């Protein structure tokens, strides 16, 4: 679009008097970059390309020899990518750099300070200078807002799904499972239980009811786990990727290829997930490292960050930490949280639990 405007201005504008070659370069450059971005998607996210694009556009203005160049709008389009692609400060910085670059170019092409005395010229020059700032900052804010909305949308749909699964789990647990317990209890109270043909039938039925209860426990654990992902490493990786996308803090996950599955995995996953969330939310680390290893029948899950360490008053009774401790307890494992209070040495959360407890139903 910038190219089109520039070309039209070049053809119809009377102020500037350019040769055909200049117009050709402008059109070719505009079309070339548009095609380049369309073909190689990675290009539009590459800061080196933004720098080149902005510098080239400003060079075109310089080559045009006049700060009121028709290429000005084309140059402005170079701001769109850096302003919208990254965090807000980057957009604002790119905008500032562009404005300074443009001022430099304008000085080189020669600002006629005498004519600037006339009010319309002065206004035009200041508009040329402030337009990139307004445009860039506006775009950066808008892009940030859109990204924020997008994250919120994903989060709220995840929460809705989670709430639905919990509701189902609660219904199963509060009603169906109670009926199984009631039937088991009544049946087990029958006289002659275990002797004679009737006794055999009762024993069989009791066994079936016990299996039904156990199966329901494992379904409940699955319902309460994440998005149907059944291996611990798989679920942790998905969660890590989401956290990384939401916060921009890299999370490395390594596991020793043991695909742990089972209803108890849910608890281990929630512990690791909570530890990762705490790390990126509160510790301000440059990265988080998660490792899942199994040796001698014990799972060891470690979440380490290089952030600010534990607060002086570690909130041991907060809901999050309590839930982690309880889950570790249900697995028959132990959970250790180490980190110097505000020592800047990072924090380490280590869960050690018997692998057997992950495979069995562990409510």
């Amino acid at each position: 679009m910038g190219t089109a405007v520039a070309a039209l201005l070049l053809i119809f504008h009377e102020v500037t008097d350019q040769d055909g070659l200049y117009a050709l370069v402008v059109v070719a450059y505009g079309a070339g970059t548009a095609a380049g971005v369309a073909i190689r998607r990675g290009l539009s996210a590459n800061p080196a390309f933004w720098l080149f694009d902005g510098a080239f556009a400003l060079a075109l203005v310089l080559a045009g020899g006049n700060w009121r160049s028709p290429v000005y709008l084309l140059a402005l389009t170079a701001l769109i990518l850096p302003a919208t692609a990254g965090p807000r400060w980057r957009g604002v910085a790119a905008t500032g750099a562009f404005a300074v670059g443009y001022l430099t170019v304008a000085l080189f092409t020669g600002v006629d300070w005498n004519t600037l005395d006339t009010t319309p010229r002065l206004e035009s020059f200041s508009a040329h200078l402030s337009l990139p700032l307004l445009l860039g900052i506006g775009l950066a804010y808008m892009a940030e807002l859109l990204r924020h909305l997008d994250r919120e949308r994903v989060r709220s749909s995840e929460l809705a799904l989670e709430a639905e699964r919990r509701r189902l789990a609660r219904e199963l647990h509060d009603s169906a499972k109670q009926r199984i317990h009631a039937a088991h209890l009544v049946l087990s109270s029958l006289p002659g239980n275990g002797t004679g043909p009737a006794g055999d039938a009762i024993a069989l039925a009791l066994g079936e009811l016990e299996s039904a209860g156990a199966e329901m426990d494992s379904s409940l654990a699955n319902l309460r786990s994440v998005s149907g992902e059944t291996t611990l490493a798989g679920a942790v990786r998905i969660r890590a990727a989401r956290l990384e996308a939401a916060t921009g803090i890299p999370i490395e996950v390594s596991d020793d290829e043991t695909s742990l599955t089972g209803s108890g995995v849910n608890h281990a996953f929630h512990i690791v997930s909570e530890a990762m969330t705490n790390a990126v939310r509160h510790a301000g680390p440059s990265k988080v490292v998660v490792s899942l290893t199994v040796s001698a029948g014990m799972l060891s899950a470690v979440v380490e960050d290089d952030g600010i360490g534990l607060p002086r008053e570690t909130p041991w009774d907060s809901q999050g930490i309590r839930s982690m401790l309880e889950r570790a307890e249900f697995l028959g494992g132990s959970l250790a949280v180490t980190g110097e209070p505000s020592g800047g040495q990072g924090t380490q959360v280590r869960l050690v639990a018997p692998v057997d407890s992950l495979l069995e139903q562990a409510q």
Partner: protein
Amino acid sequence: MIRVLVVDDHPAMRTGLNSVLRREPGMVVCALAADGAEAIAAVEHDPDVALVDYHLAGEDGIALCQRLKKQDLELRVLLYSAHARQGLALPARLAGADGVLDKGAPAHDLLEAIRTVARGDSVFPETAPELVRVGRSRIAEHDLPLLGMLADGANRDEVSLVMHMQPGEVEARVERLLEMLKPRIG
């Protein structure tokens, strides 16, 4: 004759328990309650043993156990739970319960447990050493003696006497310990 108060929020469980306990010689169901309020009201039927579901609507069995014990000092409370049997043992002791039983246990075990607590004994599952260790790590050092005494069956008055604490303070610290130790069921 052991008079039993049944507290469970599911009608199937209440009906099942009622039918099993009624048929047992030497036992009678004196009241059925679906929630805490009904249970407290049923204390006037003078039960010997309250069989209390841990997972009640609006209130957990531990909190209800404490209220029932306040209401009737002689009442024996058996917590009946479908989950976290082991994790429940310690908080149940702290709350003054006389036993914890798994809902999956056959009728014979249930009847035996009711008779045991009615006699004045207690029925608690073995607590795994690992659980004790994890529980300890969560509790402040100065609360450990208090926890130890209560877990051994000492009552609140004995604790306040031995540890030179006001009864109110014992109560407050037990409350805090319970909050830390109670299993959460999501």
